[in-house]
């Protein structure tokens, strides 16, 4: 045995942070070995004794009343155990409490091709598939709405009767400050119309679930979900069971990107049938069904009007967005607000008017995809900044660098900003690409484009109003020195398990191998709201740090007493607890646990995270706040063939303000993946629909619900990516860390459009940028017309009454001065943004703490 030595570890100097052992160093992800050996158990890899199989019958018509469902032929087929229809599911659900418009199986009406109508359970998957097709459904067709324009022109029949007006699902209008005065101050006003196509997440794992009845009246659902907690709530509601009888286990997701954040029909039907049959029920969706689940990027038409001073500073902005929402609400109300909320966090925007509307159409429902509602307006904003720079004779990099938001400031729409590494990001990509020297001076057909972006590090408010923590972590110490960490977070590939393990290991000075995780299990783990809004690293990380620090405190007290060393001189590193001022090796971590367990009893500590209160108090202020924001900048180099419009992205330089990288290797992977997905959206991905020929059915269908024809980039399409990680630790993040899962996607589409302009001198004001668009814009220029391809006009839309919110500079207090609807939603007001947790607790009313 080797003699014990004190780890190399000096006491931190006065005011300095403890040196870090693990954080900041690249390490193998904790689930890495399982993922390369095939041991990771995704939902479809699970099987149980007596398990049966479920298939859904989905609507073949886009909009119709259901007249009759005849399951007799299906029930007569061999192996068939049960058929379910909408009759069995009277209770509606939906991820947002304001739009619970879905049923586990359609009741009375179908709203898009792919809406689930009936379900069949059978002994084998083949039998279930055959029987589902034998279920006969009679429909009475209703007129079909295919587009934003058709939705605006067709208030009747309504796809949903709860819409704000006709088929306008949601109307928003919010004005921050005296926008008219801002435009009067402007020396240049630009008005542009942009379009961003819809696209989908395309996770390689098709959604799968297994429901297992257990004990008396208990049920476990294993599912590929990003949000086990919200799914748990939806199951309890629809099944009419106490939540305490339902256990949701989120299996490792084979990719999510936002597409597994809603509670889904197949999850609920599997659970219901498992309870009915008393047997495990499994379903794995086909690829075509994954396209039907969708919840992907909303197609958004935008009109952006911005006033600039001569130096590029912005005096005012007016943004209108119109979202094609598809057939259901999903996250759409939040998506609508998000198309406006984050315009203000990159450059000072003193006065800002945002108007947004979402329509219902008879297509698969849209929802949150990586960047949730923000890539579309960011595209417009960053392209317009490029146009402004050209008009003002400025270099686009200088225009941005001269107009950066102030760290720690409050924006016009009342968002509290944290640290801002955007300036360093811009400098890095500009220097790396030679942008300053090369932009505007490259040979014909070659160009460089610059753009920036910013994103949340977690949504400030939960999906349903409550005053409880957004993330909780439990740490349990074993006498062996093993550390068990429990948290409701979901590993969807982003590396959240590794962040959780690393933070606890760092605080306790143990190795990653000493940590055992239990995650995403609503029976066993404290609630974490899920893997969405880039919230996990910051929120779970802070909760994990608190739980681990409380455990360390107990250990330190016991060791301090035993070794007679003052608490502040004890260090935890390399699996030992020791006196930094002495030369003795101290105790092993396991010995420290034994000392502490003997002194205090069983050792388990918890940590919680509640985001800071946001300063905005107006209706709609709940969307946009975050503990801090991440920033990114990108330069893209492109080569365009003006004869064909074919282009090739040669290289991407991307810098991301990560705060602090917990594990740089995984941060890089998120950046590269974000660049990739952004390029997919900018170059080719498109959730296109078409009407089938009249002689077939005239139905409105997804144009290509397959991995082959829905184009996504392959190995051969990806350019070189040079990544710079910019670390500006933010005190609100664990060890200073910010998000990286979503932000790096944002600058990519506008950087590509700006690069195409630099290459051939034409503006493509929409994505994906198709070669024929470039050719048409070049032809337009040759004909003496505007050198541009993009939408021509923005339709007239009633956005509803405008909320008027004075800015802080104007002496505002974060409230609207004309909101007279507060009485209507008083319940929301008591439990939502209007009061702090402390105020609500002071009232001692349970119902004010959460909504059901």
């Amino acid at each position, binding site marked *: 045995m080797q003699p014990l030595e004190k780890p190399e570890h000096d006491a931190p100097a006065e005011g300095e942070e403890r040196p870090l052992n693990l954080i900041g160093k690249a390490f193998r992800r904790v689930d890495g070995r399982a993922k390369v050996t095939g041991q990771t158990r995704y939902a479809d890899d699970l099987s149980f004794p007596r398990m049966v199989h479920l298939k859904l019958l989905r609507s073949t018509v886009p909009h119709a009343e259901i007249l009759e469902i005849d399951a007799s032929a299906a029930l007569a087929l061999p192996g068939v155990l049960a058929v379910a229809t909408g009759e069995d599911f009277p209770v509606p659900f939906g991820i947002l409490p304001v739009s619970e418009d879905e049923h586990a199986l359609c009741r009375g009406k179908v709203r898009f091709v792919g809406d689930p109508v009936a379900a069949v359970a059978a002994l084998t998957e083949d039998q279930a598939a055959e029987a589902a097709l034998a279920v006969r459904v009679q429909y009475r067709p209703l007129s079909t709405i295919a587009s934003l324009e058709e939705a605006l022109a067709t208030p009747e029949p309504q796809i949903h009767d709860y819409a704000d007006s006709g088929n306008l699902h949601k109307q928003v209008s919010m004005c921050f400050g005296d926008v008219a005065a801002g435009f009067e101050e402007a020396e240049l006003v630009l008005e542009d119309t942009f379009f961003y196509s819809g696209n989908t997440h395309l996770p*390689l794992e098709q959604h799968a679930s297994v429901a297992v009845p257990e004990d008396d009246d208990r049920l476990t659902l294993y599912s590929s979900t990003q949000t086990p907690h919200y799914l748990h709530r939806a199951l309890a509601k629809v099944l009419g069971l106490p939540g305490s009888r339902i256990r949701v286990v989120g299996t490792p997701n084979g990719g999510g990107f936002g597409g597994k954040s809603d509670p889904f029909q197949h999850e609920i039907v599997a659970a219901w049938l498992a309870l009915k049959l008393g047997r495990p029920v499994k379903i794995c969706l086909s690829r075509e069904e994954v396209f039907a689940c969708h919840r992907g990027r909303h197609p958004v038409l935008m009109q952006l009007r911005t006033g600039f001073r001569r130096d590029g500073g912005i005096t005012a902005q007016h943004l209108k967005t119109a979202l094609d929402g598809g057939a259901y609400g999903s996250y759409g109300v939040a998506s609508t607000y998000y198309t406006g909320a984050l315009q203000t966090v990159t450059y000072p925007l003193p006065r800002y008017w945002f108007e947004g509307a979402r329509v219902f159409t008879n297509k698969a429902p849209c929802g949150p995809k990586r960047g949730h509602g923000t890539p579309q307006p960011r595209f417009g904003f960053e392209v317009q900044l490029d146009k402004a720079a050209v008009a003002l004779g400025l270099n686009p990099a200088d225009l941005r660098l001269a107009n950066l938001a102030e760290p720690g400031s409050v924006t016009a729409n009342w968002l509290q900003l944290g640290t801002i590494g955007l300036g360093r990001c811009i400098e890095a990509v500009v220097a790396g690409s030679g942008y300053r020297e090369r932009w505007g001076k490259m040979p014909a057909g070659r160009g460089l484009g610059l753009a920036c972006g910013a994103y949340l590090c977690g949504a400030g408010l939960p999906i349903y109003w409550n005053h409880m923590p957004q993330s909780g972590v439990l740490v349990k110490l074993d006498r062996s020195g093993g550390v068990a960490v429990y948290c409701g977070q979901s590993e969807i590939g982003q590396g959240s398990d590794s962040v959780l393990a690393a933070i606890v290991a760092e605080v306790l000075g143990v190795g990653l191998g000493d940590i055992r995780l239990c995650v995403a299990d609503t029976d066993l783990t404290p609630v974490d709201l899920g893997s969405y809004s880039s919230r996990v690293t910051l929120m779970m990380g802070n909760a994990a740090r608190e739980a681990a620090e409380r455990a360390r405190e107990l250990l330190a007290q016991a060791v301090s007493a035993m070794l007679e060393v003052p608490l502040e001189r004890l260090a935890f590193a390399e699996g030992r607890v020791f006196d930094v001022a002495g030369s003795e090796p101290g105790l092993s971590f396991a010995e420290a646990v034994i000392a502490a367990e003997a002194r205090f009893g069983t050792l388990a500590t918890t940590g919680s995270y509640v985001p800071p209160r946001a300063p905005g108090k107006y209706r709609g202020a709940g969307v946009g706040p975050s503990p801090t924001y991440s920033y990114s900048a990108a330069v893209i180099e492109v080569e365009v063939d003006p004869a064909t419009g074919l282009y090739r992205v040669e290289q991407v330089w991307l810098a991301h303000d990560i705060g602090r990288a917990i594990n740089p290797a995984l941060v890089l992977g998120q950046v590269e993946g974000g660049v990739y*997905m952004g390029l997919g959206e900018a170059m080719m991905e498109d959730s296109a629909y078409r009407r089938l020929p009249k002689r077939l059915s005239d139905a409105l269908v997804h144009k290509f619900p397959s991995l082959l024809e829905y184009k996504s980039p392959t190995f051969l399409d990806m350019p070189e990516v040079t990544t710079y990680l910019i670390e500006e630790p933010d005190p609100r993040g664990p060890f200073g860390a910010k998000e990286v899962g979503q932000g790096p996607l944002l600058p990519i589409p506008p950087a590509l459009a700006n690069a195409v302009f630099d290459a051939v001198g034409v503006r493509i004001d929409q994505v994906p940028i198709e070669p024929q668009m470039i050719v048409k814009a070049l032809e337009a220029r040759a004909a003496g017309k505007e050198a541009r391809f993009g939408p021509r006009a923005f339709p007239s839309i009633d956005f509803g009454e405008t909320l008027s919110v004075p800015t802080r500079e104007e002496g505002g207090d974060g409230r609207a001065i004309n909101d007279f609807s507060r009485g209507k939603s008083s319940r929301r007001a008591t439990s939502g943004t209007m009061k702090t947790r402390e105020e609500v607790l002071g009232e001692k009313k349970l119902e004010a703490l959460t909504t059901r």
Partner: protein
Amino acid sequence: MPAEKTLLSFTLNGEAHQVLAPTHHTLLEVLREECAATGTKHGCELGECGTCTVLVDGQPVLSCLLLAVEAEGRAVETVEGLQLGNQLHPLQAAFADLGAAQCGYCTPGMLMTAKALLAANPEPSTEEIRAALAGNLCRCTGYHKIVQAVEWAAARLRGEATAEPPREALYGSPEPQR
């Protein structure tokens, strides 16, 4: 009517297997459902994504497009057979260390395709790696880490035991000085 079944014999990762499976089932279904070899994944079951790639007699094959009866008497290799004892194959180690597996779902197919490439071409260029893997989709990584991992593993398989990935693959490029 119950589906007709066939008795199949093939080797799976060097071990003899005999299974009774529905005659119309694909190799993918038989591996996952009859052999409990769930390491092989599926993303489309239509031959579009490469996720289900396995090796049959050393050649990469889309197991969702191959009827299991066509594998009769042949040697099938899957991700479960890559390790040597408890030791990861250099491809597996490189994928794990670089983060070339994020969600990990495309990883088994990538590993098997890469294994076939390196067996045929121990020193592939970056372009050759990209071309060989172009039929395998990944939605997480942007493909860079996968190319870097295959390059690193190839070096190690060639006996360059001290080969290391470039520092940029783990830490990014150094921030340029103004």
